[in-house]
C-alpha cells in the first residue's frame, strides 16, 4: 500500500499524557502514555467510543491543547517545546477539520473571508491574488467559486464541511487531523465528503489522521487503524489486517457491534457482549484497563495487576493484551 515504513515518520508521539483537573485533586486521565507514528502520505484511522480520548489526542497533535507530559515530534521538531511565533509557523503545516460544520464556521463572516483568514494570518496573499486563491479553493472543494460573498447559513451541512476543508487546505498543510468530519452529515452526503478527502489527498499529498467512531468508514478510508480505549491505544495494524484478524478483545467487540446493511449476514452474526459500562477515566481500573469488561480476562493475574504493553504481535500489528492469541478470528 501507500505506506513505506522505512521512511521517517511525519509525526511521532512519545509517551503523550493529558490529564484534566477534575476538582478535589482528582484528574481525568484522558490520554495516558500514548506512542505512535504517522508516515507521510498515509491515512491513519483513530477509533474508539465516546470518552476514550481520541478527540483529545487529535487536539494535542495540532497543539490546540498542551500536553501534560510527553513529546510530539513533527518532522523531527518537538512541538511541545515550541511556543509563540515558532509554534505558529509550524501550525501552518498542521490543520484540523471539525465534526460540526455548523459551529466551526463564524456565522458573521463571509465564506470568502473564512477561507482567506489563514492566508491573511500568515501574510501570504493580498488583494486580487488572495481573492483568486479563495475562488480556486472553493472550486477545488466542489463549490461554486462565486459563492465567496455568501454566509455560512446559506449552505447545507455538506457544503459547510467543504468550506471547512477549503480553510484547512488553504495553507497547503502536510498533516490534517479530521475529527469526526462526516458524522454530523446525512448518509448520501457522507460519501461526497469521503470522496473529496480522498481526491485532495492524492492531489496535494496530504497525510490524514481520521478520527471517527464509525469503523466501516474508517476501514474504507484508512491505511492503518489505531483503536483507543480509556486513554490508551490498545491496537494498531493495517486496515485490512485489523478487520480480518483483531488481536485485542475490545477491537473484536467493536467490530462485532457494527451493523452490516445486509439482513442475511446480520442475522447470523454474533455480538461480543461487553459487560458493564466504560469505567471512569478519573479512576481507571488497575492492570489492563479493559479487564473488568473483557470476555477473556484472567483475574487477578495477570489482567488485573499487570498492564499489558502495546507490543508487536505480527509484522506491523501491535496489540496491548496478555491473551491476544485467544481473540477469536473473523467478524
Amino acid at each position, binding site marked *: 500500500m501507500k505506506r513505506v515504513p522505512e521512511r521517517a515518520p511525519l509525526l511521532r508521539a512519545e509517551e503523550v499524557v493529558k490529564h484534566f483537573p477534575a476538582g478535589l485533586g482528582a484528574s481525568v486521565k484522558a490520554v495516558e502514555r500514548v506512542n505512535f507514528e504517522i508516515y507521510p502520505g498515509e491515512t491513519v484511522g483513530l477509533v474508539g*467510543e*465516546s470518552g476514550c480520548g481520541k478527540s483529545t489526542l487529535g487536539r494535542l497533535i495540532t497543539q490546540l491543547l498542551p500536553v501534560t507530559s510527553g513529546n510530539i515530534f513533527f518532522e523531527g521538531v518537538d512541538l511541545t517545546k515550541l511556543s509563540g511565533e515558532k509554534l505558529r509557523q509550524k501550525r501552518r503545516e498542521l490543520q484540523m477539520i471539525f465534526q460540526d460544520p455548523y459551529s466551526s464556521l463564524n456565522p458573521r463572516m463571509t465564506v470568502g473571508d473564512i477561507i482567506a483568514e489563514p492566508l491573511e494570518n500568515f501574510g501570504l496573499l493580498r488583494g486580487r491574488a488572495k481573492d483568486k486563491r479563495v475562488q480556486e479553493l472553493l472550486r477545488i472543494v466542489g463549490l461554486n467559486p462565486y459563492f465567496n460573498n455568501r454566509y455560512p447559513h446559506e449552505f*447545507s451541512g*455538506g457544503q459547510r464541511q467543504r468550506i471547512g476543508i477549503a480553510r484547512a487546505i488553504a495553507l497547503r498543510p502536510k498533516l490534517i487531523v479530521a475529527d469526526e468530519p462526516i458524522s454530523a452529515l*446525512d*448518509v*448520501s*452526503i*457522507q*460519501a*461526497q465528503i*469521503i*470522496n473529496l478527502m*480522498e481526491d485532495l489527498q492524492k492531489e496535494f499529498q496530504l497525510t490524514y489522521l481520521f478520527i471517527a*467512531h*464509525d*469503523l*466501516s*468508514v474508517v*476501514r*474504507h*478510508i484508512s491505511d492503518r487503524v489505531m483503536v483507543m480505549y480509556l486513554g490508551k491505544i490498545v491496537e494498531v495494524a493495517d*486496515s*485490512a489486517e485489523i*478487520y480480518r484478524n483483531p488481536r485485542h478483545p475490545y477491537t473484536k*467487540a*467493536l*467490530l*462485532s*457491534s*457494527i*451493523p*452490516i*446493511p*445486509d*439482513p*442475511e*449476514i*446480520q*442475522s447470523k452474526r454474533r*455480538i461480543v*457482549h*461487553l459487560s458493564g*459500562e466504560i469505567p471512569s477515566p478519573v479512576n481507571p481500573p488497575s492492570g489492563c484497563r479493559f479487564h473488568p469488561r473483557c470476555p477473556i480476562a484472567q483475574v487477578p493475574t495477570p489482567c488485573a495487576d499487570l498492564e499489558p504493553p502495546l507490543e508487536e504481535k505480527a509484522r506491523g500489528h501491535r496489540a496491548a493484551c496478555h491473551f491476544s492469541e485467544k481473540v477469536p478470528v473473523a*467478524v
Partner: protein
Amino acid sequence: MTAPVLQVKDLKTQFFTDDGVVKAVDGVSFDLHPGETLGIVGESGCGKSVTALSILRLVQEPGRITGGQILFKGTDIVTMPGDDVRDIRGKDIAMIFQDPLSSLNPVLKVGYQIEEAMEAHTKISGKVALSRAVQLLKQVRIPAAESRVEDYPHQFSGGMRQRAMIAMGLANKPSILIADEPTTALDVTVQAQILELLRDLNEETKTAIILITHNMGVVAGLCKRVLVMYAGRIVEQGPVEQIFKDPQHPYTWSLLQSIPRLDADRKDRLLSIEGLPPDLIKPPRGCRFHPRCQFRIERCFHDDPTLMDVGPDQEAACWVTMRRALARDGEARA
C-alpha cells in the same frame, strides 16, 4: 394474515411556515400487523419522524395533519377527540426518542417515572406499581433493578437511560412501540445491545415495533419489513431481505451503494448521490428524486410515479427501476 393493528392511509402532514407550506409527509400509506417489526428509513427531512409523530397526533404547530387516515384497530386517530388520543398514547401506542436524557425528568426517580406511565392509564396501588417497575427494569436487563429503581436519571449511563425509556414504553403492554432513532446517540457497542434488547422484547411481548432510523445497518438487524422515504413520500417498500438484495428504486440502491461496509474490501471510491434533498415547500415536478437520479429518463421530469409492484411483496415508485436501469447500462457498455 391477521388484520393490521395500524393502517396509515394517504397521510398528509404539512407545516404552515412564513416561507410557505412544507409538505413534510405527502401521501404516505402503509399497514402494520400485530407483532411486526417495520423500519422507516431515510435522511433528515424525509418525513420519517413526522410520520411517527402524526401517528400519535404529536405534531406541533405550525404543523397539522391535513389529510388521510390513521386507523388504529379500525378507529381513525386523525378525527378522534383529544381525550381518546391521550388514552391511546402510552397505553396502546408508546414512543421512545433519540435522546433519552431529555426525555426523562431529571428531578424524579426513574422508578417513579415508570410508575407514573402506568398510573396515567390504570388505577393501581403504589406497591403494585413499584413491583411492576422493578419487573420492567429487569425485563430491559438492568442489573440490580431493585435498587436502581430508586436512582435518578443522571445516575444512569446513556444506554441504561434508553433501557429505562423502553421499560416505560412497555409499562402498559402497548400493541405498538415507535422507536425514533433509539440508538443514534449511543456508542456502537451500546447500540448493538439496545437493538438486541428490542429484538428480544419483540419476540417475548409480541409488541409491534416501528423503528425510525437513517442507518440501513440498524434496519437490517432488527426489522422484517422496511419503508424507504424520500422528500415526504415512500419511494420503496418491502421485506428487508428483498429490499437489501434487490432494491428497485434508484434512491434505495444508491443509499446502499454509498455506505462503506465493514465486510467489504476497500473500494477506491464510494458511490455518492450528488446534490441535496429537495425543498419541500416547492418540491421538484415529476419524480422528486429525478434531479439527483443518475438513471432518470425523460418521463421522470414531468410525470410523478406512484408505488408499483416490482417484486414479491415489493413496491417502488419509479418509472425506470434498477432492474431495467442496470440492464440498460449493461447494453450500453456492450
